[in-house]
């Protein structure tokens, strides 16, 4: 096959002869591929990461007894429900559900040194699973510790480290204040203790008033979780906290919309830029084409030659650029979310393919070269 040998020889010569031009095209294609890969990878990652960021909003699902609560601790749920709720599957591979089980009691509270007792809501809380800062309150770790909301502290003039006496209906307990917390919510009016202590105070061992859950994932995942949990535990009312689920859904839509729009915009225009650069280079090939035609090259073969060149350039630019881009996106992910973006393998072939397509499309104007008349080229007519 002397034909094929000749073909590759010409390709080799094209690459060897004009290094500067080659570098320019590679740079343009590589830059395009880099941005494409980085943005694609970051976009997939950022959308997932965003739902994690919403964690800062705290619990988004509340599980409470189905019966109406008409007195402070009228209806309660079994403590074991909290563990079972964690087993309700969301989407395979999604992060697990975390939460806090709570029992509220209105108890009389007094600082060690005074005998004056003031009624305060005491929230016994126990963290169910690996959880983050659900309410901003540092949950007391054992029976002897508690934390006071800022309003309680103000009212009773409490300081961290003091001893607190709690009593309700005959039961009594003491704890040491670990911290004064401020959240702007109802927690400010409460004393936080371990669940066991509030159960002891209320005389309700093994019971809880409600569970605050943090279900992570997209709005659809949360809805699915709520539906399946409600079905599995008919004795409890499982409802999303609309303030946060709806707000999160809206914000998620906006942010992912803006990310997608930016990415599409950048990709399309990057492709156009690369094409314009390629076209510019293609135009100066008139002399080469004229010569090839003059010595008997068929238009189709000449065209094939240039398309092969473009495809090869696209491949090289894509392979290099996509690799740099994925590295770049990992770094960007680290800069934004503090965790390196996970590289997605799918991004790599997609980017390379896109780059090759853009490179070939950029060589498209070469088609016009078919009309070139060798004679006019040699006469130097532009």
């Amino acid at each position, binding site marked *: 096959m002397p034909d094929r040998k000749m073909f590759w020889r010409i390709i080799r010569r094209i690459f060897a002869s004009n290094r500067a031009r080659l570098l*320019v095209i590679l740079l343009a294609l590589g830059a395009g591929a880099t941005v494409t890969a980085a943005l694609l990878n970051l976009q997939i990652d950022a959308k997932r990461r965003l739902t994690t960021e919403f964690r800062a909003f705290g619990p988004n699902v509340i599980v409470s007894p189905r019966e109406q609560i008409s007195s402070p601790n009228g209806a309660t749920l079994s403590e074991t429900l909290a563990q079972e709720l964690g087993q309700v599957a969301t989407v395979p591979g999604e992060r697990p559900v975390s939460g806090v089980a709570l029992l509220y009691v209105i108890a009389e509270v007094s600082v060690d040194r005074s005998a004056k007792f003031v009624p305060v809501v005491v929230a016994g809380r126990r963290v169910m699973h690996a959880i983050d800062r659900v309410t901003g309150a540092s949950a007391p770790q054992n029976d002897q510790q508690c934390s006071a909301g800022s309003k309680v502290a103000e009212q009773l003039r409490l300081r961290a480290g003091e001893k607190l006496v709690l009593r309700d209906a005959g039961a009594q307990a003491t704890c040491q204040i670990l911290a004064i917390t401020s959240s702007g919510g109802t927690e400010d009016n409460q004393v936080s203790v371990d669940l066991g202590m509030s159960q002891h105070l209320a005389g309700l061992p093994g019971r809880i008033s409600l569970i605050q859950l943090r279900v992570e994932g997209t709005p659809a995942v949360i809805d699915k979780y709520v539906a399946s949990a409600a079905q599995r535990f008919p004795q409890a009312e499982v409802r999303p906290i609309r303030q946060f689920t709806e707000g999160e859904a809206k914000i998620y839509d*906006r942010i992912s919309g803006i990310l997608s729009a930016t990415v599409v915009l950048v990709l399309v225009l990057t492709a156009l830029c690369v094409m314009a650069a390629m076209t510019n280079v293609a135009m100066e090939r008139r002399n080469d084409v004229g010569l090839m035609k003059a010595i008997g090259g068929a238009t189709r073969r000449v065209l094939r030659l240039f398309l092969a060149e473009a495809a090869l350039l696209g491949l090289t630019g894509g392979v290099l650029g996509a690799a740099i881009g994925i590295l770049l996106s990992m770094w960007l992910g680290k800069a934004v979310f503090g965790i390196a973006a996970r590289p997605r393998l799918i991004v790599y072939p997609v980017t390379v393919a896109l780059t090759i397509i853009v490179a070939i499309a950029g060589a498209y104007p070469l088609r016009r070269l078919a009309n070139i008349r060798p004679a006019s080229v040699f006469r130097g007519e532009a």
Partner: protein
Amino acid sequence: MFLRLVADSFSRRPRHKLLTGAALALGMAVATAAISVSLDVGDRLAREFRSLGANLVVTAQADSLPLEIGGVDYRPVNAGAYLPESDLGKLKTIFWRNNIVGFAPALEVPVEAWTKPSQTSSTPAIAERTTLMGTWANHSVSIPDGKTYVTGIEKTNPWWQVDGRWFKDGAEECVVGKSFAARTGAKIGSALNVNASGANLSLVVTGILSGGGAEDDSIVAPLTMAQKMAGKTGEYRRLYVSALTKPEDEFGRRDPTTLAQADYDRWYCTPYISSIALQIRQVLPGADVRVIRRVADGEGAILTRVRTLLWLVTLASLLAAALAVGASSAASVIERRTEIGLMKALGAGSGTVGFLLAAEQLLLALLGGGLGYSLGILLARLVGQKIFGAAPEFSFLVLSVIIGLAAVVTLLGSAIPLRRASRYEPAPILRGE
């Protein structure tokens, strides 16, 4: 002569110039669109975050400790302190008044409620113990400077949905929570009897409220009705404020009392949530203003992240645009070897040749940059309109940045081939080698 050469170069090879210009314009369009969207997105998203509702809560400083579980306050009615409703107009006189998106006072009264037995039903209605929350819906507040401002609970709790309509301000109407409605059989149009320690009212149900919280079990009525029930004319217990804020940074978290005067002024004049809280405290005497940390901190964290993310994306697209533009201007210089050779053979110095080419590129950058800017603005409008329903504003800053960027990038792109061109020996080029 110089100008003639430049003009000649443009008219002789319009196609080449057009292509380079197009690449430039497209690149700059990306840059413009990305910058415009990034500049704008923070404010838009901050507004979007207000769908989470109030981020500040105001109570009376002298208030006793609320005994609240599941949205029901177990304090006796007369315990605690109240704030005067007449002061609320002052909220719109603070320094960051335009950042206050909405506010609504609330007064909760424990009541017994029952629907009037209908004519056909023989079963007597059972009184249901619940909470009546008095608040504003589409209330117009008069501001000290003579204007009025319309606000209400739907601004501070935007996730509340009312099937039917909100009550009219001051009318004997109410909306009822959906669980309450289901239990008592209250429907839109039915009359609801409400009784609290002697005071008695009959309210017409105008809507069914669903909010996903304690409000689903309660009655929401005009503030004046709740004041009548509680015997607290012109007073409220709690105020929710929804304000647009700037995420708190290192500076914003510092304790304002320790700041020097100049720093304090800067802190005061930045819409941090804490400075807005302070300003509200200054106009509402006896009030205790607290930041709802859950809302404010989450918002701050996410806003900061998203903003950084978008700036990085913008930077990446700027880089790509710059590289593509640089590459095409480099290509346009490379192809002019013969011309450069000829000029040098005719006695032009390297400096003159470089100057001539640079001038050409700059002219191109100006044209391409300007065109790209208009194209980019169109794109940014499209994106802004699509996502936020509002187009980003025209900014002169972006235009100057874009033109400057176009000039720098084209010059840099042509610098390397130009340097090489200045070293060309004219003879071999002219011989066609």
